[in-house]
């Protein structure tokens, strides 16, 4: 009996995740249809759109360093666009951002292809970029502790 109910629970959780993914997918499709409306976006390059806020500790301590490392790995082949959701609430609403940090994966054609609600580690972001057809970065894992800290492109 508990096994059957556990299976039922797993099915319900699966359905919930499916609904969540469909909802997220719908937001991305709507965004793609309406255009990115991001002045900082440079067409022809994949991008990560990063929503943050001042005093967001996970953003400062985990997300921003992860994005800097990713930027160091991909170099000029990736653009990271940072948006302060407090200063640009209309952009946050347009992108359906519920909390920060939130990161969107945008392919080289300007199509939003994925979203991470909450902190996304550098390896996950790299996997997402590889999944949309980007080539593995030339800078290998041995370079992960680089002291070079490229600045993220900020948009307020």
């Amino acid at each position, binding site marked *: 009996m508990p096994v059957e*109910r556990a299976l039922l629970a797993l099915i319900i959780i699966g359905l*919930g995740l499916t609904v969540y993914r469909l909802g997220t997918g719908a937001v991305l499709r709507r965004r793609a249809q309406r255009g990115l409306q991001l002045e900082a976006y440079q067409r022809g390059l994949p991008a990560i759109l990063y929503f943050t*806020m*001042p*005093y967001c*500790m996970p953003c400062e301590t985990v997300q921003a360093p992860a994005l800097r490392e990713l930027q160091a790995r991909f170099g000029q082949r990736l653009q990271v666009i940072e948006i302060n959701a407090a200063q640009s609430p209309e952009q946050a609403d347009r992108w359906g951002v519920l*909390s*920060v940090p939130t990161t969107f994966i945008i392919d080289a054609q300007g199509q939003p292809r994925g979203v991470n*609600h*909450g902190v996304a580690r550098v390896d996950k972001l790299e996997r997402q970029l590889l999944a949309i057809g980007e080539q593995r970065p030339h800078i290998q894992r041995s370079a992960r502790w680089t002291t070079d800290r490229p600045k993220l492109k900020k948009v307020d």
Partner: protein
Amino acid sequence: MNLDGLAPVDHAALRTNQALIIVGTLAAFVLNATWLAALVGGVMLLGVAFSRPGFLPIYRALARLGWVEPDRLMDHPEPHRFAQLMGGLFLTGAVASLVLGWPGLGWALAWVVIGLAALNLFAGFCVACAVYYWLSRAGWPGFTQAPPPGSSPGRPPQVHPEH
């Protein structure tokens, strides 16, 4: 930034509370244990009565072990209490339905609690907090607070007390 009326609220305690609500209610469903759902709902309502997260003692024990760290943000505690009250009432309704012999309705209500707590825990959106702020904007008596500066209804604030 105007922080009038805001107080440090430990969001790590809120997240631990949500996680334990999810685990407890899920276990109640899997084990078909009405008493466990009643226990989780009762703890939530007790938390409302004492103006704190119901599972605060467990959070403090975990914090002492170093498993969780405080994450205090300048926030209004009222919407979170309202959220806990809503969850506790939903679970009370679930238990009442189960006792009265309507398991479908009872467990559906319990899954609503699981779903909303999961949305808050994993996506950072507190539906009941958003409802609180919307009722406040509509002028409902007892709903007096507006969202903290720089945050939208239901989204967590981002201002730490030291700033």
